[in-house]
């Protein structure tokens, strides 16, 4: 009998190629006759395009073509669509201004694409891009989200810069609860704008074949089928069957590679115009101004409590900055994925949240690791910790007093939690973090002239997005199922095709573990294919920690069909009744006897059907399945962060970080730990080092890795991790997802710890050394 593979720390199948330089990322792909694109980008945040003169650029050495917005308009290339329609408080659809691939008449953020130059070499394209003359009529820029509505509209379609005002909850009841509350805790804060910064910059390489009329588009994407659907049906008007999109090895995504970007559209269109393959790879400076950013909320949040510390109601008002244009899923992030999470782990009976989404002259904002849920967790967990301090109650105790303990639990903000055990993760985290010994450590720090603080965050997230009909009723313009296929070869080895996409998550290993475990075969006999629309039947891709819960379930459903058909074939071969044939450990066996056929023998019979029930059964052993989830999954956990602050410099060191998560069933603990490490570090980055800043004219002041500080190895500790397991009740693997948890829980835990250390109510993120030092100074 093979050892179980589900739950095993299996080393990754993908590592050999990455460790030997054999990975193939989009920029590594070079076609015969390759040409290269360079984009001319606006240096202004807001300006009219008076004139774009491309003549000199066209004459430059090696230049094949220069295109502007006018060329795309003449060719009837459409604008980029938004995938989620939000209906506002008055029942009106959100404002959807056009998002042209190359600017038409006006530019609305620094870095917006004005023209593209295509040349024989990347250097020639860049040199010629410098020769494009643009006459800009500079306009005042709208940068500050909080005051955006008071400024003249940057889009004709949204005169007050408002995309929508949206609300969830019963305002009257919430207001009444606040009026009768024994205590109200109030916080005002900014959830800082972040730049995702996957280390592989975005890239696209498109080829067109006149012979077949087919396009092949390599692109650094998290969801190649969605990219194809949006590009063909909504922008370029191409037949979907004539476009192959390949997302090969992709060097990190974190949300930023979900979207259809203008560069993808322009390069694909140009490949046909020139009858040459065209490649574009972002420089990091371009990534900073053209990859979708994340977060950027201005929020006022209030929590009402009774005299016993029970939460009565929560009231939240947020202004969300969407940037200059509606990116693919921008509209659902500060609404559907934010307000619905405001119950957190608690029984708060009444919640009201109002969100005003505004356009500004900044880079578009969309989902970034966690997407709405880190913002919600920050609201809930900063409020709860602050309330505990105001009431002089232990913050862990206040949480326990309000934990949800009975499941399923219907929250007042639409979600229904299927399962959870919040006490278990908090108990484990407090023990592992040695909260009992904190007072002593604080004393020791004090002796060294350092300030020590401890903070909690008990987060919940909704993953495995989503039941398609529920998403549709909330405005989604797409289905959110996943597809999988199991192809059994005649010799019994297996290729798995999944619509999920891995860009660091290790699906080639995790999904192979699931399949090999269920089929009772060595993992070497199973390979996983993803990321190519010409191989994979369909897919909605990877985001929102959905891959194992939705993509994994689709694979399990296909496996069930394989085994069901295998039993029929085996019953024939064994001359037994199908009902008597059971499958275990790689063998079909007649129950209670030693008569059996191996999986390989059955596969061979399916493809060499000499002795086979051809009158009742098709030959072959190949099944696919689509899975549409019944509900979201609800991973949750408890984080304890301990910081030490240097009074002299304001520098904050993460002294200890303990994370106990409940991801339901875990397939590969090694991979899951890696996901948590990475998520925590991005969350710590948001809290301590990362803050995207614009000046008043709309220039990005943090436009390089020298100015925008993503955490380095010296900024984070070795993490202490553990898990508790409450299986998801509505998928066969009992899995919930783990990719975003760290980034969701960490910011609140870190800020709760720093404010504890400093003895202040609040502090803006990122709490850089300078911010902390300035806060300490009046006291010093």
């Amino acid at each position, binding site marked *: 009998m093979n050892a179980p593979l589900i739950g095993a720390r299996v*080393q*990754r199948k*993908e*590592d*050999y*190629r*990455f*460790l*030997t*330089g*054999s*990975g*193939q*990322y989009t*920029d*590594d792909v*070079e076609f015969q006759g390759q040409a290269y694109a360079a984009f001319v980008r606006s240096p202004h945040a807001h300006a009219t395009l008076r004139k774009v003169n491309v003549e000199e650029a066209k004459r430059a050495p090696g230049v094949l073509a220069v295109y502007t917005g006018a060329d795309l308009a003449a060719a009837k290339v459409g604008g980029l669509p938004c995938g989620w329609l939000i209906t506002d408080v008055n029942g009106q659809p959100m404002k959807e201004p056009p998002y042209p691939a190359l600017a038409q008449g006006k530019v609305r953020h620094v870095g917006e694409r004005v023209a593209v130059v295509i040349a024989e070499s990347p*250097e020639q394209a860049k040199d010629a891009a410098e020769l494009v003359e643009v006459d800009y009529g500079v306009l005042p820029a709208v940068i500050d989200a909080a005051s955006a509505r008071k400024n003249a509209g940057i889009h004709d379609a949204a005169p007050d810069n408002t995309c929508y005002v949206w609300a969830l909850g019963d305002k009257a009841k919430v207001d009444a609860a606040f009026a009768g509350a024994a205590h109200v805790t109030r916080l005002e804060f900014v959830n800082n704008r972040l730049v995702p*910064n*996957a*280390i*592989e*910059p975005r890239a696209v390489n498109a080829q067109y074949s006149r012979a077949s009329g087919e396009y092949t588009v390599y692109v650094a994407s998290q969801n190649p089928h969605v990219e194809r659907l949006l590009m063909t049906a909504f922008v370029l008007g191409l037949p979907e069957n004539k476009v192959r999109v390949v997302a090969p*090895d*992709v*060097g*990190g995504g*974190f949300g930023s590679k979900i979207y259809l970007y203008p560069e993808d559209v322009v390069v694909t269109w140009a490949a046909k115009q020139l009858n040459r393959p065209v490649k574009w*790879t972002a*420089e*990091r*400076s371009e990534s900073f101004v053209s990859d979708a950013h994340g977060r950027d909320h201005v929020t006022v949040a209030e929590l009402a409590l009774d005299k016993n510390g029970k939460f009565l109601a929560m009231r939240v008002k947020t202004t969300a900055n969407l940037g200059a244009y509606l990116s693919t899923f921008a509209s659902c992030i500060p609404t559907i994925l934010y307000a619905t999470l405001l119950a957190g782990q608690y029984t708060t009976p009444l919640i009201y949240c109002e969100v005003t989404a505004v356009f500004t002259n900044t880079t578009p904002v969309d989902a970034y690791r966690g997407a709405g849920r880190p913002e919600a967790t920050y609201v809930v967990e900063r409020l709860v910790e602050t309330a505990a301090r105001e009431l002089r109650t232990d913050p862990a105790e206040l949480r326990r007093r309000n934990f949800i303990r009975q499941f399923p639990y219907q929250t007042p903000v639409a979600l229904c939690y299927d399962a959870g055990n919040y006490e278990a993760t908090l108990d484990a985290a407090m023990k592992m973090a040695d909260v009992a010994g904190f007072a002593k450590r604080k004393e020791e720090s004090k002796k060294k002239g350092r300030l020590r603080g401890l903070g909690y965050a008990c987060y919940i997230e909704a993953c495995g997005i989503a039941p398609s009909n529920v998403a549709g009723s909330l405005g989604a313009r797409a289905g959110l199922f996943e597809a999988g296929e199991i192809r059994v070869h005649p010799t019994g080895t297996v290729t798995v095709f999944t619509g999920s996409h891995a*860009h*660091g*998550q*290790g699906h080639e290993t995790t999904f192979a573990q699931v399949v090999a475990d269920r089929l009772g075969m060595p993992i070497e006999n199973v390979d996983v294919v993803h990321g190519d629309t010409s191989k994979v039947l369909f897919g909605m891709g990877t985001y929102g920690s959905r891959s194992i819960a939705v993509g994994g379930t689709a694979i399990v459903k296909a496996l069930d069909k394989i085994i069901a058909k295998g039993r029929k074939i085996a019953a024939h071969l064994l001359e037994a009744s199908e009902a008597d044939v059971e499958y275990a450990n790689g063998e079909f066996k007649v129950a209670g006897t030693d008569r059996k056929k191996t999986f390989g023998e059955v596969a061979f019979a399916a493809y060499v059907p000499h002795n086979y029930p051809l009158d009742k059964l098709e030959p072959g052993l190949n099944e696919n399945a689509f899975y549409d989830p019944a509900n979201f999954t609800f991973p949750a956990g408890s984080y304890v962060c301990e910081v030490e602050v240097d009074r002299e410099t304001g520098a904050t060191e993460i002294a200890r970080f303990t994370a106990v998560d409940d991801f339901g069933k875990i397939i590969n603990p*090694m*991979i899951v*730990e*890696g996901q948590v*490490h*990475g*998520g*925590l*570090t*991005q969350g710590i980055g948001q809290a301590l080092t990362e803050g995207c800043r614009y000046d008043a004219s709309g220039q990005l002041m943090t436009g*390089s*890795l*020298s100015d925008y500080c*993503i*955490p*380095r*190895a*010296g900024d*984070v500790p*070795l*993490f202490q991790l553990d898990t508790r397991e409450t299986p998801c009740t509505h998928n066969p693997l009992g899995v919930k997802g783990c990719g975003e948890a*760290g980034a969701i829980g960490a910011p609140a835990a870190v800020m709760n710890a720093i404010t504890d250390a400093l003895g202040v109510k609040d502090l803006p993120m990122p709490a850089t050394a300078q911010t902390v030092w300035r806060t300490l100074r009046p006291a010093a």
Partner: protein
Amino acid sequence: MSVKVSMKVNGKPVSAEVEARTLLVTFIRENLRLTGTHVGCDTAQCGACTVLMNGKAIKSCSIVAMQAEGGDIMTIEGVAKPDGALHPMQAAFKENHGLQCGFCTPGMVMNALDFAKSHPNPTEQEVREALEGNLCRCTGYHNIVKSIMAGARAMNGKI
């Protein structure tokens, strides 16, 4: 202006006519088609392009190819044994799950090889300091630190 550059890369002599402004990383990726060396930024911050030049880890985006004239370059493609078996440092990354998307990985491994020569038994702190110039967005460095500590011990001071 074009110039001829010659050097040894992964033990093999190579030469090519390139524009004078050609960066070493561009020469490696575009002329030699050794695409394991990556470009993650344009300000010499990320370290994805790290290679060994004359045994020392350098960021190949921060010198032009001409400056490597006559040099001995090792890229990630030259690290594994001729039969394909992983080098102990590569094996340590695999065993310790020291990589996720793989994009920063070649630079991490090349930097670690140089570091490990002089640090056969490094502390966690020493490894973190050595990684100052290599950015990773996936792993939170936790398992990279562990990988390099284990890989350095396995190398025992020899590449």
